[in-house]
């Protein structure tokens, strides 16, 4: 029985999907930071989280997702406030005063009170490309929550509202169980907020 007829196989990587998930997490992080400032409903929702609270969104086996290749070259001030996407994690920090800041994608030196973990890159791809709504994804076990459950529910609720802001109705209708009616969110408020969030997310934030 010669065993090298059955070689050991080290699985490869799906670069394209990694890159897509990295960018989406970066956009969501930045958008949440801006939305917390701009929209009162999001602010009320995120107010429920305690102060000095870090929240992380990542994809399972942490070691399998190193930072992007150009991450080392970026100067420190870019990585601190996450001007550019450079990793497949998202860190939100609520400091003592209570405002939310996106603090980049590098896990070094950060301790997460609550982490929302996608079970695999494929699952992250399904959720972040809106093939499954957030609720169905949770039911199908696409992502798992580490830390106490109520905080994650508020975070998911905030995420839903931001998605409504960011994406046109066709796409965000897939992600959210119930698309807000006219009464709750006037057309003007939605479009205006969308433009503001986009601009600020990609610039100063």
């Amino acid at each position, binding site marked *: 029985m010669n065993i090298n007829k059955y070689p*050991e*196989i080290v*699985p490869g*990587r799906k670069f394209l999907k990694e890159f897509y998930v990295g960018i989406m997490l970066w956009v969501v992080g930045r958008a949440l930071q801006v939305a917390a400032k701009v929209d009162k409903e999001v602010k009320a929702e995120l107010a429920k989280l305690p102060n000095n609270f870090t929240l992380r969104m990542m994809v*399972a086996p942490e070691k*399998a997702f190193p930072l992007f290749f150009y991450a080392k070259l970026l100067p420190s001030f870019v990585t601190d406030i996450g001007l550019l996407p450079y990793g497949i994690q998202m860190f939100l920090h609520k400091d003592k005063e209570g405002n939310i800041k996106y603090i980049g994608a590098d896990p070094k030196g950060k301790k997460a009170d609550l982490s929302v973990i996608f*079970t*695999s*890159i*494929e699952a992250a791809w399904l959720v972040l490309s809106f093939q499954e709504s957030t609720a169905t994804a949770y039911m199908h076990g696409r992502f798992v929550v580490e830390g106490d459950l109520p905080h994650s529910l508020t975070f998911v609720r905030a995420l839903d509202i931001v998605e409504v802001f960011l994406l046109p109705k066709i796409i965000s209708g897939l992600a959210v169980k119930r698309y807000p009616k006219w009464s709750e969110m006037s057309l003007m408020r939605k479009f205006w907020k969308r433009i503001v969030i986009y601009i600020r997310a990609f610039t100063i934030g």
Partner: protein
Amino acid sequence: MHIPDHYEFLNHSKIISGKCALETIPAELGGYDAQKPLVIALKSVVERGLKKKFIKTFSNSMVVLGGIYDEVREYAGISLAQDAAILFKARGCDSIIALGCGPAVDLAKAVNVLVSEKIDNLSAHYEGAAIKGPLKPLIVVTAGRSNGREAANALVVDNRELVSDFLCPDVFIIDPRMTPGSCGESVAESGATAMAQAFAVLTDRGINPMTAAVAHPAMSYLAEYLAKGVKRPKNRQASVALANASVMASAAYSNSRPGMANLLAGELAEATGISAGRFERIILPSVIAAMLKKKAWIEDDLYLAAAGIDGYAATPAGERTQRGLEVSLNIVGGLKKVLPVSLSEMKVQKHFLEKAAKAAAAKSGKRFTEAECASVLAQAWDAAGKVK
């Protein structure tokens, strides 16, 4: 709803079915603190090119495959198990994945016993020694033809059976990329086996709510998807449904008593060397015809599962047993163009029939006599006027 005086039920395996089911394997292995699985694959599955797809699903996970042992063909023998066990120890694996159904799963269970108990062959267990503790985690990825024994708490290696609750696989992965059948015939045979098992569970006198609950979805998937799956084996939804049906049917069947069709088909398969699925497809219609004549009492679960909720409610209580049997007959009838319809068409030697009838009656625990078995086989011999 009739509940028997005493029953025991165990369905140890977890079923993960649907889109991206394969991607959950790293997480499942993590749940068992395992990092390095050995993959035992069916030769036919590897030749169909599923190996590359299977490896790609592990990308971006910390799981390293300790080797893909693909020497399994139609027969699971102890020599293959010993070779795989050598590979397992050499690579320092800690769990086993069986890629493909039938002999691959039996072999995976045998390797699991050899490795976990640190023994070289199963002679101690053939003499009756029980398996002491839980074995290494075993994940089964369904693909190819199933022999209806995957979810059972038993392994059959070298035609010798070893029964123990620790032998149940831990996880069943049913992924639309793996389940499409290679040809209509293999889908038909697995369908016939699952149908015979689900029928045996739902018409058994000692049926209990748990086995009925597991057999109900199996029978309804067979009713809806068997004909379509046989016509187009590559159709993903039909093949996933049929794979689900065969896993559920074998789980329910391992908790209930074997039916006449299963026993007779097992005996004939052993005598002639042809797979049991083909015989079940022939003998089941005759068993149903015999039951119709005998007006045997059957729980309503059979009709509910076969005809669905609306069909069940529409018929009055008295006719449900009879209608249930007729619907099951039509389900099996769906296989007519793919598998032979009668024993004479398969050229089974006549003297095997008497021996099979005697052996089946002996194993049935007095539920049916040898005369009944012989008459069923006689009817299955030409199977002329029945299933068109």
